[in-house]
């Protein structure tokens, strides 16, 4: 088996080792789903029953899908790499005959694959029971949605990778991490759909990779973007994924050179 496939397997097993954590995460996502669905439906009601193409049911569905994807896509922060850079354990990664970025990406995809069902199913089941879900009846949106979620994981990983690399230059990443958390959560569509943004904020969001992490996969799964529109969104995700990975690679090389050539 190739080393990357084994890394993906390790990612899966590392996360499946903490089942209680997965259950706690799913519980939290579900509770917040109830609150968000209620607020979303209230906002749509106040706007006269329709807001930027969402009625009460599709609005609630949006909220539940966003809660379902939080875990697998990991729109929050991750600091494993930064900790390894700070502690010097990055030397172990450098001394392995495998590309570090590819290895960590494979492990993150394994993590996402594990979290897909345990973290996404509970909010969706509760959503179906409490508010009902407006989901397409045909298969294609789900297949495209799976591709889109996978790309969303890659985009999210590439962003988190870059944020972590700041540890090569900064001693304390809390500021950077908090800024990233606020920006990503707002602009990815976790709080409200990007389609509700005022034009200026929508423009800002469009210039960031964040909608590609959550808004795009949800639009594809709900069938809001179908056919050519779905392909445009997927293309956008691919472009962000490749662009950010390439930049992340270059920055890692510069950081590693700082450690290796300048000596940390």
């Amino acid at each position, binding site marked *: *088996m*190739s*080393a990357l*496939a*084994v*890394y993906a397997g*390790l990612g899966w*097993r*590392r996360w499946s*080792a*903490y089942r209680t954590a997965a259950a706690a995460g799913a519980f939290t996502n579900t509770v917040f789903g109830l609150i968000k669905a209620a607020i979303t439906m209230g906002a749509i009601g106040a706007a006269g029953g329709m807001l930027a193409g969402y009625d009460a049911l599709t609005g609630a569905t949006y909220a539940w899908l966003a809660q379902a994807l939080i875990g697998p896509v990991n729109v929050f922060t991750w600091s494993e790499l930064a900790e390894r850079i700070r502690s*010097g*354990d990055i*030397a*172990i990664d*450098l*001394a*392995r*005959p*495998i590309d570090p970025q590819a290895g960590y990406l494979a492990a993150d995809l394994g993590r996402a694959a594990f979290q897909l069902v345990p973290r996404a199913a509970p909010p969706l089941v509760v959503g179906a029971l409490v508010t009902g879900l407006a989901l397409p009846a045909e298969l294609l949106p789900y297949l495209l949605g799976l591709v889109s979620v996978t790309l969303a994981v890659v985009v999210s990983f590439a962003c988190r990778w870059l944020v972590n690399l700041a540890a090569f230059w900064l001693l304390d990443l809390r500021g950077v991490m908090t800024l990233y958390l606020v920006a990503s959560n707002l602009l990815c569509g976790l709080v409200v759909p990007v389609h509700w943004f005022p034009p200026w904020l929508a423009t800002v969001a469009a210039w960031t990779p964040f909608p590609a992490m959550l808004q795009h996969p949800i639009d594809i799964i709900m069938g809001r973007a179908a056919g050519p529109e779905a392909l445009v969104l997927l293309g956008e995700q691919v472009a962000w994924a490749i662009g950010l990975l390439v930049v992340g690679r270059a920055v890692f090389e510069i950081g590693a050179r700082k*450690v*290796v*050539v*300048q*000596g940390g």
Partner: protein
Amino acid sequence: MTEPIISATGLGRDFVIRTGRGLRRRRSITRAVADLDFTIEAGAAVGYIGANGAGKSTTIKMLTGILVPTAGRVHTCGLDPHRHRRELARRIGVVFGQRSQLWWDLPLAESYRALAAIHRLGPDTLRTRRGTLVERLDLGEFLETPVRQLSLGQRIRGEIAAALLHSPELLILDEPTIGLDVLSKERLRQFLLEERAAGDTTLLLTTHDMDDVQRLTDRIIVVDHGRMAYDGTLPGLVERVGADRVIVVDLEETTAPLADVAGTRLLGVEADGLRQRLAFTPGSTTAAAVLAHVSARAEVRDLTIEEPDIEDVVRRLYASGT
């Protein structure tokens, strides 16, 4: 004549240290390693010794390609370590005593599966090699235990197996026995001796432990402030610095201090002379002669001989200013 597995010529590494801020910012240069020249032949077992901060870890990082030298050249397995780091990583095994290359949350066995994939070992090779290591390092009991739950001794054994899984030509151990109890140390040494006897693995070991050096290596290199202080055998070093052995005698009755035993120095007297410690330099007298001398004065109930410890030998070497 085969090519040496490690060759260093004029090897040096400076670090730039920046202190202060803004206009007060200063740059100073610390020389971690300077002018090291040595070669290590394939199959050798070399102890690399020095006080903390002497440049041991810096040298090892340069040998493995995770630090670029600022002066001189180094070749490991015939490769430039920095430029061919990944290729080199397939041919050497490294254990950094303070760092782990195992996956913390997963059972030990999973780490070996991953390492086998990284090193492209076939399933048969993995099974045989893993079987051998598990048996000889006695890993069987905790192979399915998550690494974070292992004791230090178990983890270090696991680390060494991880470094040896791909049968490297060169094994580099950076303080492998640090923090281990006497029994664990002994088992580890026994294993390393067998491993060396079984194959042609070259061993480079940094340690603070005299017994490690004595048991495992046939040559030692001592560094002091980044420079070569000694390169040769351990007895040669002891002879050169004249390290003392200490004879401790427990006597039947209180005895006046044995200050005038020929060829010895009285180090200490305890319990009104019931226990006395005498230092002597091998060569100037013998333990037997000292014992005979002491027995003439008082009845000896028990005695022990303390060998010079590596710290002491190195300290003397440093002090001798060579």
